């Protein structure tokens, strides 16, 4: 059983809760492999996608996951809503709840917004990304994919490469994978690795050649082009030369290492095209698994007593 009505972050989840979500997701993955990819479980309930930041992939994944559970789904995106007329965040959320929403899936550029709404609302709040804080369903689908490919997570060397400082995907994965017993290493330029991150139980490397050694899982992060103008790295060429994943570098990892990326990818910058499309890449499976994991999260949250 999950303890809280909301999914706010991997920081808040216990190991048992994470494993429950992953086990439940396995059953939903079976459903997604059938001709009829839909179950009547949450018929009559409503999910609202409240996205204050542009997102196609995550929003679509949540929308389809909800539909596969027979939920009704409404997409509430900022440019078409009253938010532009100056309605406060909480008023918008309360309005959505008053329309009958049972689940509010929220993405916002400020960290902590889902936590604030969770306190104000009786609906289940699901964090779909809050600023540079967390993106828990991404970490859950990553854990599911690793478990699916490697059988177990405990004891694996997982390397996360890129802009750790601004990445909520990295943050959620650090909480999640260390709880599940993986050895997590971070690689990136010193400007993009937060100070004191080692207190979270991870090791920091600045060179790919050192950090990739013996890795079982290589998780690449998207490099945000706009960070360059703010001086976090000199140029995309320079970044790619030092921290891009090339076939030669991938050879340093274990021969059966898997390569992951949360998408969207910058091909040729953080990841070489031949790796993205190569036999070690599980990037498209991550997308499929994301559906199963999001179905599991909504199914389990629906059972939490208020």
């Amino acid at each position, binding site marked *: 059983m999950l303890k809280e009505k909301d999914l706010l972050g991997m920081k808040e989840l216990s190991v048992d809760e994470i494993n429950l979500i992953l086990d439940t997701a396995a059953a939903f993955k*079976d459903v997604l492999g059938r001709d009829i990819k839909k179950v009547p479980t949450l018929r009559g309930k409503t999910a609202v996608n409240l996205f204050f930041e542009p997102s196609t992939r995550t929003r679509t994944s949540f929308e389809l996951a909800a539909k596969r559970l027979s939920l009704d789904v409404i997409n509430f995106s900022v440019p078409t809503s009253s938010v532009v007329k100056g309605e406060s965040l909480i008023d918008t959320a309360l309005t959505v709840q008053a329309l009958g929403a049972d689940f509010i899936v929220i993405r916002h550029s400020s960290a902590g917004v889902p936590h604030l709404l969770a306190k104000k609302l009786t609906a289940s709040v699901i964090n779909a990304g809050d600023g540079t804080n967390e993106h828990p369903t991404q970490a859950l689908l990553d854990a599911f994919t690793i478990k699916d490919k490697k059988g177990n997570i405990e004891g694996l060397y997982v390397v996360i490469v890129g802009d750790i400082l601004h990445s909520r995907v990295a943050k959620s994965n650090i909480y999640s994978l260390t709880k599940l017993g993986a050895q997590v290493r971070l690689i990136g330029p010193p400007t993009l690795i937060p100070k004191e991150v080692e207190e979270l139980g991870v090791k920091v490397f600045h060179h790919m050649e050192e950090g990739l050694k013996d890795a079982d899982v290589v998780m690449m992060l998207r490099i945000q082009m706009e960070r360059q103008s703010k001086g976090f790295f000199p140029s995309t060429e320079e970044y790619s030369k030092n921290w891009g994943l090339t076939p030669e570098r991938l050879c340093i990892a274990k021969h059966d290492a898997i390569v992951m990326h949360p998408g969207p990818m910058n091909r040729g910058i953080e990841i070489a095209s031949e790796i993205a499309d190569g036999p070690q890449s599980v990037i498209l499976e991550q997308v499929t698994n994301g559906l199963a994991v999001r179905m599991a999260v909504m199914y389990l949250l629906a059972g939490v007593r208020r």
Partner: protein
Amino acid sequence: MTKELLNKDDINRALTRMAHEIIEKNKGTEKLCLVGIQRGGVHLAKRLAAKIKETERKDIPVGSLDIAFYRDDLNIRKEQPTVRRTEIPFEVTDMKIVLVDDVLFTGRSIRSAMDAVMDLGRPAAIQLAVLIDRGHRELPIKADYVGKNIPTSLAENVEVELKEGGLEDRVILKKIA
């Protein structure tokens, strides 16, 4: 208060008779398969398949079905049902499916199971085999094969304990405290 209703031998005899009835009614094992409802029904389905094999010398397909996603009581249960895997490694379309469960009570699980099977394909027929029918139906559902009919009160619980679950085979009646 606990009362034993069936012992190991009673269960074995009941299953033997049910296996024969299944073969008789279906005139053999052509297009026949057994689907156990998680969890108790799964073990019983395997035992019935073994008994059918003893008589007919044919292996019939056996699957397991989890009905968690098809339940109608998600809103009123204290806990979310644990989700187990559905493993039906054969096409259900045009098959004669015998659903197997340990206890038939309100009939709601069977309704869920029929919906779940229908989403996997279009079977030629669905039949129902249960070890215990304890009455109190809330839906118009009737078993085709019954191990034992046991009149119960709503203040009682029927529990089927099986050796596959680490216990000795027996069926007991318990007063709900």
